């Protein structure tokens, strides 16, 4: 059982542009860490580097002190599960087929009884049993995201990486998915590393938060320590008011003002009106 994921001076260039610079971080078993930061700050890239979808230098991503570059893809896929921002599929796969793909790291050709059992258990746990024989492309976005999480869990990973899993979902599905992630971490089933946009949701569900600014870590710590008005202003460039929510977690309310450069009432440019009946 792997206990600790360490990222050590991770830098990454994409076609010559520096996307990540000297990122150091550590995730322990049973922890839920959220990665926040503006668009283009390197959240997705960081997740992909950890999961070796993007190649990194030697000795930058370590599991219990061991370099993950020394593992082959299959070995790594038994330790880490990855949930992308959105998944589409050209061809008609059933939900069960999709979750079954999570067993790929363990199967050669034939499926064992245990494989189908694990898939069935994970689907039951996530609450998508009813969808099992539906086609993946026919279910809603929120349901699809749950299917993909079930697939990642079928890999039996010790670290679950998710890239903005709730960005395009309604509020109920957002809460459901974050509750699932939180319980996975809390029961020490696996550690959860999740890139997020919604600061309030992140603050409510994470044990620790990591704030990225232009590819470097700006600050890392508990939600209380990270989500301050000053930090948010220097990273996102907007004024906010941080209060305590009814649940005790910090709550960020963005202020709209001339000072932020966001004018609330901006008159659209004048365009001649066209007589549509002509």
């Amino acid at each position, binding site marked *: 059982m792997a206990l600790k994921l360490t990222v050590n001076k991770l830098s990454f260039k994409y076609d010559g542009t520096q996307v990540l610079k000297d990122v150091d971080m550590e995730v322990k078993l049973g922890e839920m860490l959220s990665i926040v930061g503006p668009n283009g700050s390197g959240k997705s890239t960081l997740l992909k580097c950890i999961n070796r979808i993007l190649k990194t230098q030697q000795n930058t991503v370590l599991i219990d002190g061991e370099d993950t570059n020394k593992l082959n893809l299959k070995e790594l896929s038994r330790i880490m599960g*990855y949930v992308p921002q959105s998944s589409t599929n050209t*061809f008609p796969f059933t939900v069960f087929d999709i979750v079954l793909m999570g067993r790929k790291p363990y199967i050669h050709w034939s499926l064992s009884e245990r494989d189908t059992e694990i898939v069935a258990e994970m689907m039951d746990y996530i609450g998508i049993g009813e969808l099992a024989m539906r086609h993946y492309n026919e279910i809603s976005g929120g349901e699809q995201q749950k299917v993909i999480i079930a697939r990642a869990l079928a890999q039996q990973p010790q670290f679950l990486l998710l890239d903005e899993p709730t960005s395009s979902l309604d509020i109920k599905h957002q809460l459901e998915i974050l509750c699932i992630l939180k319980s996975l971490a809390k029961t020490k089933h696996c550690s959860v590393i999740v890139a997020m946009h919604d600061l309030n949701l992140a603050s409510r569900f994470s044990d620790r938060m990591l704030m990225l600014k232009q590819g470097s870590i700006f600050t890392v710590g508990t939600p209380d320590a990270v989500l301050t008005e000053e930090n948010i202003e220097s990273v996102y460039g907007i004024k906010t008011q941080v209060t305590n929510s009814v649940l005790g977690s910090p709550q960020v309310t963005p202020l709209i003002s001339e000072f932020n450069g966001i004018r609330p009432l901006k008159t659209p440019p004048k365009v001649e009106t066209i007589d549509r009946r002509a």
Partner: protein
Amino acid sequence: MSTATELKQLYQKSKKRKILAILSLFLALLLAVVVSVSLGAGSPGFAEATQVIFSKFFPFLNINPGPRLTQTIILDFRLPRIVLALIAGAGLAASGATMQGVLRNPLVSSHILGISSAAGFGAALAIVLGVGVLGGFGGYLVIVNAFLFSLLAMVIVYGIARIRGITTETVILAGVAISFLFSALISLLQYLAPEHDALHAIVFWLMGGLSAATWDGILIVFPIVVLTVALMVQQSWNINVLSMGEEVATSLGVSSKRVLTITMVLETLATASIIAFTGVIGFVCLISPHVARMLIGSDHRFLIPCSSLIGACLLLCSDTVGRLVIQPVELPVGIVTSLLGVPFFIYILASKRRQNWR
């Protein structure tokens, strides 16, 4: 909410349904073979045909083989043609299913990857100039040339795709480009063809047909197709995973470049060896996977075998119709496949409620 045990049973049941569908297709194919054997010019009926076949393949049964003419018609003409139809249909359809899955594109066929037109150019070159890459080769000149040019096309496509990194997009774009290049070269040869006979031979080859089937040819194609299709089926899990995208495949421990390379080689070997003997037959490899997907879904462990059976069935039925419809003239199988296959395909497309592509 269904429990885990119920879910498992549900899945086992769906698996059984798929296997059952494949078995019924197999039976349908056997039936088609029997019907096809007993129909045609100078026709010995079903009873005589079976008599000849049994006496030939099970000599220990001591069955009277019947008149010599019947024997020749069945064993030297009809049977090799039927067997080649089965092999070609199965091989092309399996290749189509594999490449559509790997490249995540429902429009992929041997046409789009340049293999067909390269084979066509190789054949045309041999027909017009009477020379092949390997010099004289007797009657095999056209076949060998077509085969080698298909391989050449694959190597070029792979080489071009590598420049930007092997991804589904680069492979498809390079394939389309090469396909156009060889099509232009074929036109050029047709334009410059010195004599009417050569032009006719090129056109005939490009339409594809099974009338030239011989046991010698089958002995070459059969092992290649069986081996490559078996290896495609072996890649099923990788293809399944890859159909969710390259990043997801990596996160599930599958290198997309590796799978793409392997399947491209398999597909080219299968398609090239078939096309070399039959001429360009395109439609089967495009349509059979779609019919199969509508029947049993996209899990390639079942899809590839199912698609092969459908391809074999489609090609055999088309060729039989082509043989019979305006006797004594035969229609090339390439034409019949499209004429029969398209209405059939539109029918299932319209009758199926489920949306298969989005």
